[in-house]
Every structure is written in structure tokens, then in C-alpha cells.
């Protein structure tokens, strides 16, 4: 946008288009450096749910391993490929693991510092949390038979939802036209969101000022997420891909404090009332 060369219009290439996308990935959290154990248990898992291992792209998380340089990532990679998993990246990891991942031409994803559950009031409390909400099938695989999954559940893996439980991101300044903010977790804007600005969240979106731009909650598919705003003047609102544009939005609770949620059939707008 800025800093472009005057002679070539690289903002509008003819041969390709670059787009941001949020695609489901599966996390494979390895909790031990004993690779043989991992292999044995993963092999068992394949037997139970072969359809899940259909060239599924996986991202490794190795933060659970105590020893910082004990595991041979290449070996793990090769094994994953042999059971039809497709290792694509590493999230977090020590310098040692990151170097290995780089060598294997895998993508590096930033680590998620904290996973506070308190940030998602709609999520079940930790003790009653089911594997479904956890959404972390492979996590169970490495835990062996502690939390066995029904094969049917495994064959329909949920999108990666562990990241939806990141700390909420709180933005104190207005979100301006042309700005786009994505957060894997609840997104809270204390001020307004301008026309032409866009908020994307895997969790809920709260806007305490006026929402004049676009707000997309639950972008990884969580239909229980909602959009809340101090004044509903939005261009577009979406929950898990179910969306409404401003022609519809203008008809219901326009310029009113409201919430937008998905009722299982369609998006609903309700006025926020004072209890």
C-alpha cells in the first residue's frame, strides 16, 4: 500500500491474488521425548480412526517435553508421514526445535503464551470440559486411553479450537478504516470500529463503542460465539460463517446496543437490555 514502486502496479497483479485465510489445522502436542512411545500410541490411534489420518495437516507443539533438545523432529516427521499425517509446522518450541523445523522446511507459528479459560465465559469450566470443546483429538492420542474417543467423533475432527482460548485481546484505541485485527480468542474493543475496519476472532467480539465496520466471530467455526456492540451500525456481522450485511442489519436494532448470535438456524439480533 505504502512504499510501492511507481512503475509496477504490484497492488493488482494479473497472475495471482494473495488472500489471508484461516484454515483448520490439527495440533499434535507431544508430551514426552520417548519417541517410541509416541509412535506406538499413534499407531494404535490410526487403527481406531483411520479416516482422520487422511493426509491431515498437523502442527507440532513440543512445549510439553521437559528436556529442551531431546526429540528428533525429523524422525517424528518421517513417522507422521508414514501414517498419512502431513506435518506442516511447529508452534512455539525451543531454538533447537525451531532450527530443525526450519531445516525440514516447516512453517513456524508463534507460541501461545497463555490459555486462560476465564476469557471465554461461554466455555465450560475446565473440570467439566469435554474432549469436544477441547477439540484436541491428538492430545488424547498421546494421553493413551485416559480419555478414549468414539471413533465417530474422531473421524470428524473439529477445527483446531485450542487457540480460541487464548487470553482476550483488549484494544483501547479506535479501530480505524482499513485496519484489520485478528485474534485467536475473545476480542474486546473499548472504543469504536470504523467503516472499512474489520475484526476477526475465533471467539467472541465485544465492541463497547459503535460497530460501524465488520465483525466476524468464531472464524474457526465455533457457532456458540457472539458479537456484542454498544451501537449496532455494522457493515457486516458474522458468526462461524453465518453472516448478515448492512441491508439486513439496518432493519434490526440499528444504532442500538445489541448482540448477534447464531441460534442453530440463522443469525439473531437482540437488543442488550439493562437487567
Amino acid at each position, binding site marked *: *500500500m505504502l512504499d510501492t514502486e511507481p512503475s509496477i502496479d504490484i497492488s493488482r497483479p494479473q497472475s495471482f491474488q494473495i488472500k489471508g485465510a484461516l484454515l483448520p489445522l490439527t495440533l499434535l502436542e507431544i508430551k514426552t521425548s520417548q519417541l517410541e512411545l509416541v509412535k506406538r500410541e499413534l499407531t494404535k490411534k490410526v487403527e481406531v480412526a483411520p479416516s482422520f489420518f487422511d493426509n491431515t495437516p498437523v502442527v507440532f507443539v513440543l512445549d510439553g517435553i521437559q528436556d529442551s533438545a531431546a526429540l528428533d523432529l525429523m524422525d517424528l516427521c518421517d513417522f507422521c508421514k508414514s501414517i498419512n499425517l502431513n506435518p506442516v509446522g511447529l508452534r512455539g518450541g525451543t531454538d533447537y526445535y525451531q532450527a530443525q523445523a526450519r531445516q525440514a522446511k516447516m512453517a513456524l507459528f508463534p507460541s501461545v503464551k497463555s490459555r486462560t479459560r476465564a476469557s471465554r465465559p461461554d466455555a465450560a469450566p475446565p473440570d467439566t470440559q469435554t474432549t469436544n470443546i477441547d477439540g484436541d483429538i491428538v492430545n488424547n492420542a498421546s494421553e493413551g486411553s485416559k480419555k478414549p474417543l468414539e471413533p465417530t467423533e474422531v473421524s470428524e475432527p473439529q477445527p483446531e479450537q485450542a487457540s480460541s482460548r487464548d487470553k482476550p485481546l483488549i484494544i483501547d484505541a479506535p479501530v*480505524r478504516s*482499513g485496519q484489520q485485527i485478528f485474534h485467536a480468542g475473545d476480542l474486546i474493543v473499548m472504543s469504536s470500529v470504523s*467503516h472499512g475496519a474489520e475484526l476477526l476472532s475465533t471467539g467472541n467480539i465485544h465492541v463497547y463503542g459503535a460497530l*460501524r465496520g465488520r465483525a466476524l466471530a468464531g472464524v474457526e467455526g465455533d457457532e456458540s460465539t457472539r458479537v456484542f456492540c454498544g451501537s449496532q451500525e455494522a457493515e457486516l456481522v458474522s458468526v462461524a460463517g453465518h453472516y448478515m450485511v448492512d441491508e439486513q442489519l439496518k432493519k434490526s436494532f440499528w444504532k442500538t446496543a445489541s448482540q448477534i448470535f447464531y441460534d442453530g438456524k440463522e443469525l439473531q439480533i437482540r437488543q442488550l437490555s439493562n437487567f
Partner: protein
Amino acid sequence: MAKIIVMTSGKGGVGKTTSSAAISSGLAMRGHKTVVIDFDIGLRNLDLVMNCERRVVYDFVNVINGEATLKQALIKDKRIENLFILPASQTRDKDALKKEGVEKVLDELAAEGFEYIICDSPAGIEHGAYMALYFADEAIVVANPEVSSVRDSDRILGILQSKSRKAEKGEHVEEHLLLTRYNPERVEKGEMLAVEDVQEILATKLLGVIPECESVLKASNQGVPVIHDKSSKAGLAYDDAVARLLGEEKEHRFLTAEHKGLFQRLFRRSA
């Protein structure tokens, strides 16, 4: 320490240059050593508005390229002590402004003891506008009371708080909203946005409202920044804005239409 203030807008023709001339003059009149830099490479409007175009020998780009010293390029204002102009180049290509070069000149100006460095930005959100705002400590966002201008200002504020040097360091660039060409009659008729509407959309501190005023055109034709004209509403409004910039509390004026009495209306019609 020098304070770098960018005069920016996104949309063109809203009054950045007029405001740069007026506000830099106002600061200097109040005793602050001030320089105003024209970042509008290729157009060169500021030296016309400040009536020094015939004295331009070297320009901003010459200094960046080391073809002239800062002292050679700076033009001293004829009316006000403490005021200097660094003119834009008329011929060079727009990419002549490189970050390192701009920074070098700004540092040198600060070392010369300038208190305020006003950067008159070109329109748009391209390279020149980016260079003008990159080093800013504060920004005066100039907007007209109409939807497209306000939208562009919003965009510029976003760029300012995400792409400027301060933003890169995780700091906040102080924002001031300057609403220019404000016409209360047209606001009352609903043809223009009201101050409150603009403020609500931009959520930014209001530095001033400059009324649409014939004196502005007259002033720029004569090459005398309008702030010198104490009989003009625009001049007085700019003077108030400068006071607010320096921390004074001033009530906003010229916000409402003067409802002319019957006599005045009759008189006007027959005139």
C-alpha cells in the same frame, strides 16, 4: 526538544497547506522557533502561500542529497522572527524522499534548536504522505465536514497509529482534529456533517474548527497566511487552534450560523 507535527488528511484539497502556513506562523508569533517543511514533492504550494517562492534556491531534496546545507535551503519568513520554511523540490521524482534522508534533516533541525517542526503532507496515502507522518510526535488531522474526507482521515489515523515510528515503538502519536471549511449554514441545512458527527466518527480531540471563509483565498493570493488577518473568522479560529495546541483552554467559536435579521437580509438582497 523539537516536536514534530504532521499536517495530514488523506483526502486532497482539504486545507493542509493553508493550515500548515497558519499554524506554523501562529507558533512563531508566540515566540516558538518553528520550521515548516513542504513534503509535497513536485507541487510546491507552501512557498506560494507563504510568499517566498522567489527566494527558493535550494530545497528539501537538495539537503537530503547533500547538494546543499540546511542553512542554505532554509528560508527565513519576512514577517515573523523565528519562522523558517523548507520548500519542496519542484522537479525531482517523488521517491527522492528516503526515510534515512528525512530523518537526517529532522535531526539536524532539532539540533538547530527548532521547537516545532511542522510537516505539510501531500494528499493520499502513498510514499510522500507516509514519509511526512513517519517521524511525527503529534498529528493534526485536517478534515472537511463531509463523509469522504472524514473516512480518509480515519484511515490516516489508522496508518499513523500502526505505521509511524512511534507506533513501531509501541507508543501513541498524539492526535488533533482540525475541521476546516466549516460552513454552519450548510450544516444546518443538512448538506454537511456537523462538528459533533465528525467527532463521534473519529473519536479524536478537536483542535479547532476553521470556518469556510473568503479571507482564506484572499490571504493565499497575497501570500500572507490567514492567521495574520485579525479581522477574519478563519484567522481568529486558527489563532485559537494554536493556543489550544500550546495547552490553553479556548472555547470553540463560529460553530453556528448567524441568523441574519430581517433588515440585514433585505439589505443583502438589494445589494
